[in-house]
Structure formats: C-alpha cells, structure tokens
C-alpha cells in the first residue's frame, strides 16, 4: 500500500452498533501466524481518511464563534494553575487536563480536512474549555450547582424555543431527510443535556465535568439552529416534508420486517457456516453481520433519524446476506496471512465507502456510511496499537480485521438501501 491520500469518508459514529467489543481478540490457538509489526502499522495508516461533513455546509463564522468561546473560557483560567491556586494537586492536574484536551482539539480543528471534522473538534474544545472555566470559577466561589442548574434550565428553554421555529422544510425530501436528521440528533442531545441530573453535592471536578456536558448540549443546540438557518436560507420553494418522511419511515420499517423474514433463523456463526475457523475473521464477520441485521430502529430522535436508521438497517441486512454467501462459498475467504492482506481488507472497505459516497443518493446513505467508517477507524486504532509490537499474531487482530470486512459489505449495500428510501420518499 502506498502512503498517498485519497478521498474517503470519515465516520461520525463509533462502531458500537457493529462491533460491541472493545478488546482485542486474544483466543489462544495452537498454530500462530505472525505479522510484522511495522508492516502492519503501515497497513492501517497508509491512507488518510477525510470526513464526510454535514449535509449543510457549516459556516466559517459559526466555527469561529465556537473557537472564540472556547478560547475565552481558557483565558479565564490562570495558566499554569499553581499550588497556591489549587492546593489539591490531583484536582489541579484534572483541571489542567481539560485545558490540554481543549488545546489539542483546537489544534486538531485547524488541521481537520473538512468543516464537519473541524466542527467536531471545536465542539470538544468548547466542552473541555467550559469544564476548566467552571472548575476554576467554582474554586473562586463564582460558580456552583445552582449556576449549573440555571444553565441547564436556560438550555432547555432555548431548545424549546428553537423547536417552535423548526419544521421539516426542504426543497426535496431526500435532502430534507438528511438535514433534519442532523438537526434532530443535535436537538435531542441539547434537550437530553438540559434534562440531565447531576450531583449537587459534587465537588469541583464532577461539577466541571457536568458543566462540560452542558456546554456540549449548548453547542449541539447552536449547531442545530445554524444548520436549520443555513438550510432554510438556501431553499427557493420550501415544503414541509415531515409527513412524507414519516410515511417513508413506515414503508422502510415494513420492508425491513419483510426482509428479515427471509433471513436464516440461526445466528450462531457455526450454525450459519460450516468449517469456519472458530473466532477467525470470517467467524467474527458473520457474527457481527448477523447482529447488525437484527439492529432495532429503536427510539429515534425524530422521523428523519428513523428513516436514516432504517436505511442503515436495510444495508446491514444486505451486508449479512453478502457475507454469508461469500463464507458459505469459501469459509476462508476473508482470512489473512500477511500485513499486505490486512491492507487489502482495509482498502476494500475504503473503496466501497468511496463508491457509495459517489452514488446518487449519498445523502440518504449517511447512516450506513458513517457506521462503516466508524468500524474502519476503530479497527485502525486497535490494530495500530497492537502493531506496536515487533510481531503480531494474526489471532490477535481477527476481530478487528473482520470490521473491515463488514464495513465493506455495508458500504456496498448502502446505495441500494438509500435508493429504496428515496423511492419511498417519492411515493410519499
């Protein structure tokens, strides 16, 4: 693999829905295939992954305002904090940690490839800066539980006020779905943080952490408002698509139920495929794919999120069928015996994501693409850590490589699932 940069999609979500596991595989095996650590590191860092961004372009002024707020908070606190400022050294270190993370996030925002990534880093910076500012103010007697409660109450009121002005307007239902799903998730985050409880007896660090989350909710609401304003400003003939989106969500939910009826009842990898190596790449790939196919639509933040999630679930179902078909034909199809083959699995995933992104209905494919990229990024980090060793047993990374396999399958399935959703919207 070469070290060139290629355009790909950055997942905004973690891979929990796909993987649900944070530990490296560690099952003992009698025959071990060792991979060169340095080559393995190269395999998972060879291509830069750029971000997908938001369905509406984030304005530079908006990003600048978040940065400014973070910098203001940081400047409100002495740097460095001394033993005279904060006698408890552990508390001092904890507060200093917020500052360090905030600065790292500000730096990362500068280097981010896209506005969406930059915004995520700025949000993190804003949260950590708010935490140290709140912690410091607490020690000066200028901030306390009542103040935090007031902040949360104000956040809740502002969120309610925003909801009064927000409707599912758009020029077309596809973009409206993508944009309002992005707004819904941020609105839900803001209301969630506004309603969150905290320990009023908490001391400085827990209170600072609570203030951090409130700042996250505040930023989420601001971003929801920003997305809504920019999107509405771009519309020439606004139409309220809420009912259309809800109907499409119902249609896809029915489609999911229908598709699931045709899936094998078995979920155990050994029952689904004969001759699989236990806890090998194929074994994990089919286990994860089977779990993804069963993913519930759950309590979505709103109709646009529900529809987006349904696209993801349809893609998961198709990915499960695809992985199953491949493994039943060749149980060792995804196995690797070299770092180069690890790179090939990863590259296959990124290529599939890239192609899906270039498909006609990208906006509706965001959910599966974000999930797929979340898996790639997780696997990159986990394998990268494992590759710090001089050599790495293949068995140590089978679960992680299986994430590349599943990401590729989901991304390949995403365009069809998105097209299904687009058709449902058109019918609505």
């Amino acid at each position, binding site marked *: 693999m070469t070290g060139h940069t290629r355009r790909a999609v950055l997942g905004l979500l973690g891979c929990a829905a796909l993987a649900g596991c944070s530990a490296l595989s560690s099952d003992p095996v009698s025959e071990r295939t060792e991979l060169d650590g340095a080559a393995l590191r190269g395999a998972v860092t060879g291509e830069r992954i750029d971000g997908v961004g938001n369905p509406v372009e984030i304005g530079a002024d908006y990003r600048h305002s978040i940065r400014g707020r973070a910098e203001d908070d940081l400047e409100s606190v002495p740097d460095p904090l001394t*033993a005279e400022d*904060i006698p*408890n*050294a*552990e508390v001092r*270190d904890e507060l200093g940690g917020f500052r360090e993370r905030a600065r790292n996030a500000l730096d990362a925002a500068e280097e981010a490839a896209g506005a969406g990534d930059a915004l995520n880093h700025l949000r993190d910076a804003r949260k950590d800066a708010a935490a140290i500012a709140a912690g410091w103010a607490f020690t000066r007697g200028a901030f306390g539980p009542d103040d935090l409660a007031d902040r949360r109450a104000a956040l809740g009121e502002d969120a309610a006020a925003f909801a009064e002005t927000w409707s599912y307007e758009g020029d077309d239902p596809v973009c409206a779905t993508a944009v309002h799903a992005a707004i819904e998730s941020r609105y839900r985050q803001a209301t969630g943080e506004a309603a969150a409880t905290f320990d009023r007896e908490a*001391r400085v*660090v827990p209170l600072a952490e609570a203030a951090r989350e409130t700042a996250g909710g505040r930023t989420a609401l601001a971003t929801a408002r920003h997305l809504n304003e920019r999107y509405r400003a771009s519309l020439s003939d606004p139409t309220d698509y809420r009912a259309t989106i809800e109907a499409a969500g119902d249609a896809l939910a029915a489609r999911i139920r229908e598709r699931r009826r045709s899936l094998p009842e078995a979920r155990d990898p050994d029952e689904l495929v004969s001759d699989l190596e236990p806890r090998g790449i194929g074994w994990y790939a089919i286990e994860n794919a089977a779990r993804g196919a069963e993913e519930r639509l759950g309590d979505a933040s709103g109709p646009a999120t529900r529809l987006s999630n349904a696209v993801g679930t349809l893609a998961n179902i198709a990915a499960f069928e695809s992985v199953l078909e491949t493994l039943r034909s060749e149980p060792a199809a995804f196995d690797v015996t070299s770092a180069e083959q690890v790179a090939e699995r990863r590259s296959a995933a990124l290529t599939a994501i890239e192609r899906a992104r270039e498909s006609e209905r990208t906006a509706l494919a965001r959910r599966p693409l974000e999930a797929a990229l979340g898996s790639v990024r997780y696997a990159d980090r986990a394998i990268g850590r494992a590759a710090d060793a001089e050599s790495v047993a293949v068995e140590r990374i089978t679960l992680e490589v299986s994430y590349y396999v599943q990401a590729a399958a989901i991304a390949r399935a995403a365009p069809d699932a998105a097209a299904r959703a687009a058709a449902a919207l058109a019918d609505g």
Partner: protein
Amino acid sequence: MVPLTRRQTLLAAGASVAALAGCGADDTSGSATTVGSNPSEHVATDPERYTLRRSGDRELVTGAEGKRVDRRTAVTDAERAASLAFADVDGADDARAFVRETEFASETLLVYQSSVRTCYERELCYVSWSEGEVSLRYGRTLRSWDTHCEVGASDAGLWLVRIPDALDGVSSFSLELSSGACRLPPHVRSAAGEGSAPNGTDGTNDSEGAR
C-alpha cells in the same frame, strides 16, 4: 468527633425493604430485616462507622502486645475488641469509644486499614454480609480542591464499620474500591428507593479524623 449515624438503611438483598431512617448515635443495632429469596445476604448503605486518617504509612491500630492486625479484620467479641490499640492521633479516643460501644451480642465490628492517596478519600457505599462473609464497597473521590496534597503521596487510613448482626465468625472479608462516587448495584438501589443519594443521603460523608 462522633460516629456518623444519621440514617441507617438496612436492606435485604433482592427484596424491597423500607429504609430505617433517622437513627442516631445510640441507635439500637441488629434490626436488619430478612426478606426475599436470598435471606442470607444483607446490605446496609449507611451503617455506623468511624474513620481515622493521618499522614505517612504507620499503622493506626494494632492488636494485643503491639502485634499487627490483618488489614481486614472482623471483630466478633468484646475481648478481641479490647485488645485493639490505637495510635496516638487526633480522633483516637472517639475510635476507642466506637469500638467499646459496639454491642457484640447483636453487632459485628469491621476493621479495615489501608493506605490512601493524600488527595483522595474513600466514601463507604455499602457493606454487605451473610453468615461467615462480609464485604465493604468504597468509592474513591477527590478531596476538596483546597486540601493541600501532592500527587503520589499517601496517608494511613483506618475504617471502622459496625454491622447490625452478630456473626459467629468471618471467613471471608472482601473489599471493593471503585473510582468515583458510589454507584449502588440495582438491588441495593431499588431497595433504597430511586432518587436517593448514593450514600450519606443527608449530605454527610464518612467522618475523617484529624490528620
């Protein structure tokens, strides 16, 4: 300093038992109610207890003739209790009184001694017991921001906990220490009532003896 006995909540695991609130320093102990499918296990979220702490690592309590006592010791009789000797630190008299006032006919005294990082303190989340077995669960939280302390330094700590049950003997004395404020397991939380603070629901924490 007096033992903190603001509220004593006695719970039978796996059962919904009303909290016994408002107990004072002279509470009658041994009033644990046994209810539910697992009557051998009991939990108290706010038992009577006393804490000593001082700088350094010297022991705060020894046994007869200065012999070391196990870091975790369950005392089930007055004779053994009388053999405990406390270091000459502020709060030692109250610790002696706490031990002396234990009614071994209906109570068991748990003694736990350990080092604790100077910037932290331990909050008792709950004590659970059944015949022959006891377990303490502590949460570790940062002390107040204006407490002078350095990273890496340690204090000696002694925790005395009185459980309202006269155990014949204790063959297993386990300890769990979690990072952060107390998180009660579901059966304790549900029995204590949702919405209650994890411990010291009247806003109190374990008392800390003078340093």
